């Protein structure tokens, strides 16, 4: 046996907290979660092995279907819209210089300093269909706004609208990427007679593609795990839970209810594993697609 060098021993001393955390709070729970997902553990009675029963139930549970549908719907709207808007803001920020850009950047980020519960509460007021500010604002233009908080068809669009208030960090990331696009390139293209759209398409966008790719992944993962705002808005006490049906049922909300409201912890573990696999697959696909689209030259400039 080779003697372990003291340096290596010290290295592991420094890594010890990480290793403990990894085993106790990451790997251990992941394995435990997998084991639990094959049981009907409910914290009060003694658990029994149910095989793949929980997974079979997942596939048949209409609530899971609804929750998946809502979550996908929200993600599919939230991610492109928020990135398009953030990109528009970042492009405009990039055109003005000096202190003003900094002030605007601060303002755009400010909503992101509002705890999600407070965001949910605030929009419960703003989105009220009869008296809320949003519909009163639309009313100024003669538009009769929908019933955002009570019409099941409009609850999700309302939540998307709320999510668009929170795009400060996406804007900052894209703005930072834009500032690293060397101006010589666009100037050169301009001299070559390239139009504005052409310059954006063939120079700016490729140069910031890695940043765009990054915000797509980050926003997708967090959208799939949406919880705080909707839970605060629509899942308070029993009255609130029952008066909105399942229109605002998101996947993690359902998982949380199963685990901690009904104490169906085995079933919740199965739901958690399904979520984990889905996020893995989506991320892998995005990375694969991203590799093809992202122009990595940009990295060198950004570094």
């Amino acid at each position: 046996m080779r003697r372990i060098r003291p340096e290596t021993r010290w290295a592991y001393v420094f890594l010890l907290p990480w290793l403990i955390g990894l085993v106790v709070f990451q790997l251990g729970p992941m394995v435990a979660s997998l084991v639990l997902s094959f049981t009907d553990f409910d914290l009060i009675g003694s658990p029994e092995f149910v095989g793949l029963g929980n997974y079979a139930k997942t596939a048949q549970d209409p609530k899971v279907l609804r929750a998946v549908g809502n979550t996908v719907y929200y993600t599919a709207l939230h991610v492109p819209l928020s990135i398009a808007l953030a990109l528009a803001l970042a492009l405009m920020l990039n055109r003005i210089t000096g202190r003003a850009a900094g002030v605007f950047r601060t303002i755009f980020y400010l909503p992101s300093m509002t705890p999600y519960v407070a965001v949910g509460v605030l929009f419960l007021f703003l989105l009220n269909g009869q008296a809320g500010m949003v519909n009163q604002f639309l009313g100024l233009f003669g538009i009769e706004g929908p019933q955002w908080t009570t019409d099941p068809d409009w609850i999700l669009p309302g939540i998307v609208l709320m999510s668009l208030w929170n795009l400060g960090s996406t804007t900052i990331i894209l703005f930072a990427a834009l500032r690293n696009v060397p101006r010589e390139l666009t100037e050169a293209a301009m001299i070559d007679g390239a139009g504005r759209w052409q310059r954006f398409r063939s120079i700016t966008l490729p140069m910031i593609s890695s940043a765009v790719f990054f915000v797509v992944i980050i926003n997708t993962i967090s959208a799939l795990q949406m919880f705080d705002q909707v839970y605060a808005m629509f899942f308070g006490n029993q009255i609130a839970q029952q008066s909105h049906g399942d229109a605002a049922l998101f996947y993690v909300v359902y998982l949380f209810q199963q685990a901690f409201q009904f104490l169906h912890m085995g079933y919740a573990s199965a739901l958690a594993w399904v979520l984990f696999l889905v996020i893995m697959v989506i991320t892998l696909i995005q990375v694969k697609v991203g590799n093809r689209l992202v122009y990595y030259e940009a990295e060198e400039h950004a570094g």
Partner: protein
Amino acid sequence: MPKYHPGRISAVALLVAALSACGGVGANSGDSRGGSGEAGSGGAGSSLTTMGFGLPDEIATVRVDAFRKAYPDVKVAINEGQFDEQAFLSAVASGNPPDVVYLGRERIGSYAARGAIQPLDDCVSREKIATGDFYPAAQQQSKYDGKWYAVPEFYNSIVLLVNNKAAKDAGVDPASIDTSDWDALAKLAEKMNRVRDGRIERFGFYPKLPEFLPLWAKANGADILSADGRTAKLDDPKVVEALDYAGRLVESQGGWKKLKAFTETFDYFGEENPFATDRLGAMLTEQFVVSAMAGTTPDADITVLPVKDRQGHPVNNVGGNAWVVPKGAKHPDVACRWMKTMTSADTWIAAARARADKRAKEGKVNIGTYTGNVKADDVIFSEVVKPSGHKAYDDAVKTIRSVQQAGFVVPPSAAAAEFTKAWQDAGNRVLLGERKPADAMKQAQQQAQQAIDEATQ
């Protein structure tokens, strides 16, 4: 307590114990937890922790003071806040629950069947709790499987509350409104309703669906659950007819989506309540809304009427909160004394007196305190509550008292939560126009019956 991966957990236990020993933040949890932790020293009877109960008014504080006076050695920690199912079950599961919990009586069956709350028969006989004093409907809701699981508090009745101005605008004498004639009621609702430019200005008649579906069904002569709590009857044609009727009422007044958003802007308990501001024509409501209005708007021009079934007899779906003792409570004996004190006739009468004195001092109207205790109510309404000179409220007292005997409840069930959710979901779907009443209730019936069967097997 879970027996799960003992090996790994004991390793974690050591680690975590070390952490918590030096944990600054964890340390301050001790004092506010109010003794359930450090109470061991004084033995049983030294402390009591409550959940789901607040101290918003004199009705609460006077009774808590009565307990403190009777048991000065007990350290009472009241964790204010509404009952929260998730927090409650987590507390029970963690093995460190509060000693006594305050919750809606309709939930008791579910928790009793699940073993989350304890039977109280010993407590009732040991402390000689006068259960015979409680209204029969309140008794029924506090028992499960023949055993006492709860001690009831308030006794809320449902009445029809009319905005006289709206009725007169519609050309109707408010006192003549009769809920037994459904066709006339529907016409009246439309007449009292006011919509301008797509915006609702006055909700003509608020039938309080889906919450009050059991009442609507009863008014149409049907029960939604068999007396033994084992057979759901949600697809009974009479239930479907009631839902259909109430659903069309809402539809004809602008649709539920708008009306719901409109009702969310109502402040029933303030001076700007929807009756004082003429935003509601009439509604079915628990009497505590009337009670609050007596305090905030003594001169409101309203009429309180009994709800009648289609044969013209009064119907009244009663409810209210109750005290329960969770499984694993550290001080069930103290909890038992607490429940007895809080609900005894003497305590209620003292609280009702305090309310009457306070309202009198403030120059406000008092319509009395409607307790679950018959004896207390008899004294309160003969000795404490005096005519105020505000006819609307004095008549309201008579109306509420008159419908108390007609009180019925949905029988307790092991799957009460799932059962309620099934019909409420169905009611919502109908109101939102997603489903036809018959389809919705058929589906609800299946879900409900399945849940009941699973819970009682």
